[in-house]
């Protein structure tokens, strides 16, 4: 009886959104974990390059390498995809995300009121893909993620987490530029796109 109650309470706690001081250290531990289980440096954006190398190398020197040696990275991101599905279907209470009321006021002026999904379904959906706003947000936004991360040599995981963990100053430069680009975009450029 006690055990059942305990298990129930634990599952309910897991179903709540996790605070930063639980999630952050767990993500930090992925760095040594991947190093110890197989000498792998934590990073995600490289998977996009391996997809290019595997499917559309097109004789480009940058994609001429033995991508199969990096197959672990593709397996890892497939795991991230599965993890997303597990978390949302089995470990979630499906409550709307709670954000700063100031943000809600601002987004309401652009018609964004649905907080039930992790993405704003009011503007990011299959119908809006064929509007200028949707195209800019999904196609152009995605393009800059792929182009920018490879140009910078890593993304949030590769530079901000892996790179900073091993105290590499180029990663600090990259991380500062990620944040700077994000600040400028979110405050100056995104409002223009959302107004379309």
């Amino acid at each position, binding site marked *: 009886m006690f055990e059942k109650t305990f298990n129930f309470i634990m599952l309910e706690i897991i179903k709540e959104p996790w605070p930063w*001081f639980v*999630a*952050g250290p767990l993500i930090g531990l*992925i*760095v*040594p974990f*991947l*190093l*110890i*289980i*197989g000498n*792998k440096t934590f*990073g995600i954006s*490289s*998977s996009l390059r391996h997809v290019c190398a595997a499917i559309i190398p097109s004789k480009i020197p*940058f994609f001429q390498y033995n991508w199969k040696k*990096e197959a672990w*990275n593709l*397996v890892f*991101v*497939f795991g991230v*995809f599965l*993890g*997303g*599905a597990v*978390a*949302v279907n089995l470990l*979630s209470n499906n409550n709307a*995300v709670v*954000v*700063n009321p*100031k943000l809600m006021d601002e987004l309401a002026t652009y018609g964004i009121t649905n907080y039930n999904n*992790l*993405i704003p379904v009011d503007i*990011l959906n299959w119908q809006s893909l064929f509007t200028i706003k949707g195209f800019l*947000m999904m196609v152009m*936004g*995605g*393009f*800059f*993620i*792929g182009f*920018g*991360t*490879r*140009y910078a*040599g*890593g*993304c*949030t995981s590769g530079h901000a987490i*892996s790179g900073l*963990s091993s105290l590499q100053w180029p990663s600090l430069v*990259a991380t*500062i*530029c990620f944040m*700077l*680009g994000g600040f*400028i*975009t979110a405050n100056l*450029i995104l409002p223009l796109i959302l107004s379309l």
Partner: protein
Amino acid sequence: MQNIETNSDFEVRSLDTMCVNESKINHKWYHQIKYLITGVLFGIILVKAEIISWFRIQEMFRLQSFHMYGVIGSAVVVGIISVFIIKKFNIKTIDGEQIVFNPKSFNKGQIFGGLLFGLGWAITGACPGPIFAQIGTGASVVVVTLLSAIAGTWTYGYFRDKLPH
């Protein structure tokens, strides 16, 4: 001869890339299961801490919440301590290999590319990891963002020689 070839392949693989497989051992396919499981755990954390929420990213870039700064900051602190311990005690991999850290050299790409990635991050509310997790949560339209990101990576590879580095 074999060695030289392997090395040049590493050179290409490590170009502008953070994560490179440093292991010299050729494992059987089922060794990939450990990366699958690690990926699943990472995906669960991303969703459960709402790191892949477009709204959380908007809060972060408007300085309206500490949440994302807490996540990234504490992850980095734990990462730094872990790497320090690995180096200090010369901890080996489970296969007994020396753990390798590749120092990254600075180039202008980290600035230009960093700013461009920041642009994409703020608009889509996702970096590469979250893209995969978002699709997993059932946001099927994010597949378009993923395909665009692959196209962006390919375009970078195509123009790489002409870009300032």
